């Protein structure tokens, strides 16, 4: 029995961005363990930012030195064009989100204390804060990097958990509205665990079908294994549930509004941008690499899911009176638009590349805009924390025109108005879908966009054409948030007026497709 296991070869250089992030996260835990309390934050902030920047630089360097055409780490991880593009996107978005996290006052003093209890009071007066946020964010980002790059289902599952577990915790750390935050954390955890079980179950069934968890081998098995279709279908469906849950596609979207609302807003920004990008990367990889020969069976189902997601997201958003819940439903609807792009995959190489590049561009555009929008949400505050209720935003345009204009810009980008990044994102995805013959889906997409535009514009009207309340919320813009807003505005405008460089980049990344 001895001597039969060869040591695996691992391309450490290719995995460097992930290793850097994970390494820094572990250092972060050590800082938590040994650094005195007053120093922790001062160490974490530069450490986290430098780590993300460093990982980004390495990613760029890798993309420039040549994109590998075979999977790495014995087939467990695939560092290919789309993966590198997604890594870059996630790292930049995470960087921006961390800038938001850096600003004071988002996180609870003592998460374990009962809300409203004497312990909490004491922790607050001591000025304690949970600097664990930083290593947790780094772990989550590490998971986000691995998730879309994982080339076998087990690695993907591990990535899913590494990404999700820190997020469950982070959700419960909001400084204000403690009960809501804890509720969000518990809900996200329970439902996340539930969906992970589906994912794992699907993995097991697919293993039973193909005899491997390697995505490429599952794909080969599609042609050669006969008579096991039951295993295959149930397995794929279960796997799909796990992935669609993370995206927040209907009918697995129920967690999103509650969790987005309850979480600390910077964490919501991270989830709405980074997690969505990572989850779409993983979804695309599974459905293209593993199930590439099976489009005829999953495309109709994706149609249904995409339509349901867009419609549910757009319609439910209309009656929301809470800005964060509205943005959550908007995120659901955008997930639906992105699923249109997934449906557009599949006919041939060129079609795949154009659909993929459209999706990648959309993810970048949406990621920046959504981080920006949540950044604005953090600035509008009442005595009890951020002012979430829409009525509190009335007349903001008259009190703080710049903030209102910036938020309007983001909303218009969400709605897909020309000369904003959102327009080109939708344009590219819809174009790819039409080319793939999914015109009815695009029609539903356009109609949903129109419905969605209604509630975006309603907020703009509310901000500019309503009279401000006498005791209206105050607007506080700390330095980091200011920078985030500026970056997001810049990205939204530049991608709307001058989209070509990023489109080219996405196209180059997509041209090599996912490696098999």
């Amino acid at each position, binding site marked *: 029995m001895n001597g039969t296991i060869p040591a695996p070869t691992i391309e450490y250089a290719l995995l460097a961005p992930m290793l850097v992030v994970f390494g820094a996260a572990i250092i972060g835990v050590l800082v938590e363990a040994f650094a005195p309390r007053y120093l922790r934050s001062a160490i974490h902030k530069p450490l986290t930012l430098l780590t993300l920047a460093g990982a980004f630089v390495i990613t760029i360097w890798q993309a420039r030195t040549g994109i590998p055409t075979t999977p790495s780490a014995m087939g467990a991880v695939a560092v290919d064009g789309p993966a590198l593009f997604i890594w870059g996107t996630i790292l930049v978005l995470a960087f921006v989100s961390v800038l938001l996290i850096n600003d004071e006052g988002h996180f609870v003093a003592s998460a374990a204390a009962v809300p409203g209890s004497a312990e909490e009071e004491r922790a607050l007066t001591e000025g304690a804060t949970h600097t664990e946020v930083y290593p947790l964010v780094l772990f989550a980002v590490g998971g986000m990097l691995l998730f879309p790059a994982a080339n076998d289902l087990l690695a993907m599952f591990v990535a899913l958990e590494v990404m999700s577990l820190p997020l469950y915790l982070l959700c419960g750390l909001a400084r204000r509205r403690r009960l809501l935050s804890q509720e969000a954390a518990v809900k996200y955890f329970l439902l996340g665990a539930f969906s992970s079980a589906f994912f794992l179950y699907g993995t097991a069934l697919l293993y039973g079908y193909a005899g491997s968890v390697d995505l490429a081998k599952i794909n080969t098995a599609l042609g050669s294994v006969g008579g096991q*279709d039951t295993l295959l279908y149930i397995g794929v*469906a279960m796997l799909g549930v796990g992935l669609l849950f993370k995206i927040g596609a209907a009918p697995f979207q*129920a967690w999103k509004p509650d969790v987005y609302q309850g979480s600390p807003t910077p964490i919501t920004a991270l989830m709405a941008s980074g997690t969505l990008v990572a989850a779409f990367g993983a979804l695309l990889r599974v459905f293209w690499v593993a199930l590439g020969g099976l489009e005829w069976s999953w495309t109709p189902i994706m149609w249904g899911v995409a339509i349901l997601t867009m419609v*549910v997201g757009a319609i439910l958003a209309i009656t929301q009176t809470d800005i964060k819940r509205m943005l959550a439903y908007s995120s659901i609807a955008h997930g639906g638009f992105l699923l249109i792009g997934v449906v557009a995959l599949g006919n041939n190489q060129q079609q795949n590349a154009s659909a993929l590049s459209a999706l990648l561009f959309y993810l970048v555009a949406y990621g920046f805009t959504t981080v920006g929008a949540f950044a604005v949400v953090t600035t509008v505050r009442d005595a009890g924390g951020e002012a979430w209720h829409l009525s509190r935003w009335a007349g903001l345009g008259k009190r703080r025109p710049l903030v209102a204009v910036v938020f309007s810009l983001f909303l218009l980008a969400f709605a897909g108005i020309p000369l904003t990044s959102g327009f080109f994102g939708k344009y590219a995805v819809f174009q790819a879908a039409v080319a793939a013959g999914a015109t009815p889906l695009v029609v539903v997409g356009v109609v949903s966009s129109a419905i969605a535009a209604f509630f975006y514009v309603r907020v703009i009207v509310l901000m500019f054409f309503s009279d401000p309340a006498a005791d209206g919320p105050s607007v506080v813009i700390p330095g980091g948030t200011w920078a985030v807003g500026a970056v997001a505005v810049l990205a939204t405008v530049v991608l709307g007026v001058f989209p070509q460089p990023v489109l080219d980049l996405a196209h180059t990344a997509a041209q090599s497709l996912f490696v098999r």
Partner: protein
Amino acid sequence: MEPAKIIEHSGGVIGVSWLLIALPLLGAAFLLLGGRKTDKFGHLLGVATAVASFVVGVLVFLQLLGFDPAERRRAVPLYDFIPGLTKMGLLVDPLSISFVLLITGVGSLIHIYSIGYMAHDPNRRRFFAYLNLFVAAMLLLVLADNYIGLYVGWEGVGLASYLLIGFWQHKPSAATAAKKAFIVNRVGDFGLAIAIFTIFTAFNTVSFAGVMESGADPSQGTLTAIGLLLLLGACGKSAQLPLQSWLLDAMEGPTPVSALIHAATMVTAGVYLVTRSGAMFFPEGSTAAIAVTIVGVATLLAGAIIGTAKDDIKKALAGSTMSQIGYMMLAAGIGPAGYAFAIAHLITHGFFKADMFLGAGSVMHGMNDEVDMRKYGGLRKVMPITFATFLVGYLAIIGFPLLSGYFTKDGIIESAMEYSSTLGWLAVLGAGITGFYMSRLVFMTFFGKKRWEADAHPHESPAVMTWPLIILSVGSIFLGGFLIVGNRFMTFLGPAVGQPEHLPSFHPFSVPGLVTLALVAAGAALAWFKYGAAEVPVTAPRGSFLTTFARRDLYGDALNEALFMRPGQWLTRLAVFFDNRGIDGLVNGIAAGIGGTSGRLRRVQTGFVRSYALSIFIGAAILVGAWFVVGNL
């Protein structure tokens, strides 16, 4: 001769000609985003970006001159603007560079002048930001190599114009004027937008080069429709009949704005549009081209008549602007024989009209912002520099021999005469009226007795305001002769817009030329008797029916009201009636339906994690079931 082919260009200053637009745009962005912190140096930065843009413009011009005339149309591709629809690029050719030099050159002078004019305004920084924004948008308008880019610039200048007319928004009249300009321009812009849609449908491209070289052969009707729609757009922006009504009100803006936007540059955008599209949509003798000439002649007369009756110095000048642009339109409609004169007149007009507007601003600056000429009088002694420069501008516009306006306006009249004698004689008549109303303006302002308000203490303006005047007046003297004599400008512009087979020769003593001079002299003499030698009453006399007609802007507003507003209101009421019954029922029904669905669906979001889990479970079950159904089809 047809226009030359457009060549792809890279390298040199032309390769970076996007800097022309980028510099003022960055200036505007910096000043608007920088906030109050930039108050101290904001005006200097604004001037610096405009001047820098001018320097780049000169360098581009010099490089362009280095090429063979047939190779002077250079396309500078920038990036893919809307993938699959159009690329964004710049077109540097004799036509666009002429505009660039005018916009940045005169623009820079007006920027400098504004330092003094707006010195006491608390929002001076914002003013310069808007001016920079305008310059950038205007440059985009003339440099874009496709209609979409042009449209973006077109809307950009409209926005800047709106912001600047309403700059003193605390005055209700300014706010109303800004709104009016915006709404009237919407009508024109609508025409332009539809024209662009039609162009795209007919040619499957919107780039100038693409339209010129496309093999598509749309029907004559389509071409005419495009031409007329483009003309509608041009009428809106250039204040031509029937969309002229906004320009007079636009004088509510600060005077440098009137000089830069509403005299020298933006209002000439319509002439640019017609000239640029000339070879494609306004071929010689086509219906659209004839419409252009008719609009031009009608406006040049209407503007001149309005100018005769205005007591507000800026409104009188605005009427004159309308009239002069009418001349340009007339020339642009004539075809290749007229283009060079249209653009040459546009450039010299840019100089002398900016000169006079800034001069008027200088007068107002010294007179407590009084605009009523009846309260001026005898100012030539207290404001010698302003008077001297204004006099040069005045002589140039009435076509005093050997000054700029003489050459360019005469060129237009001559070519109009050759095209159609009726139009030509009407243009001559217009020139005579110009002689009258401009002389009236000068005599009422600078000559005669003092009719000042008690608290007016007129004084000469500071050097930062007078130097731009001096430079502009030098241009007003020499530029016209330089451009026209020896057909210098016509041969320069030829590759861009086409030129006639036989170059016209310049006759100083042709019959129309002599008649024009005689009429102008008569007009000036009449003005001298009525306003120079005679006493000018401080309150305007009731005047005859004709005076009232002119004072009320030829009843333009009343006409608009009767023709469009009232029927519009009736139509609206009717529409509202039907809307409430039919359409609204439908729309409200849909909205209510969606809202109701939303409300009902919302109840699914119970907040209980168990029901969420159940929904996931049911969803998974449906997904598995669906897979079986699809898989076994």
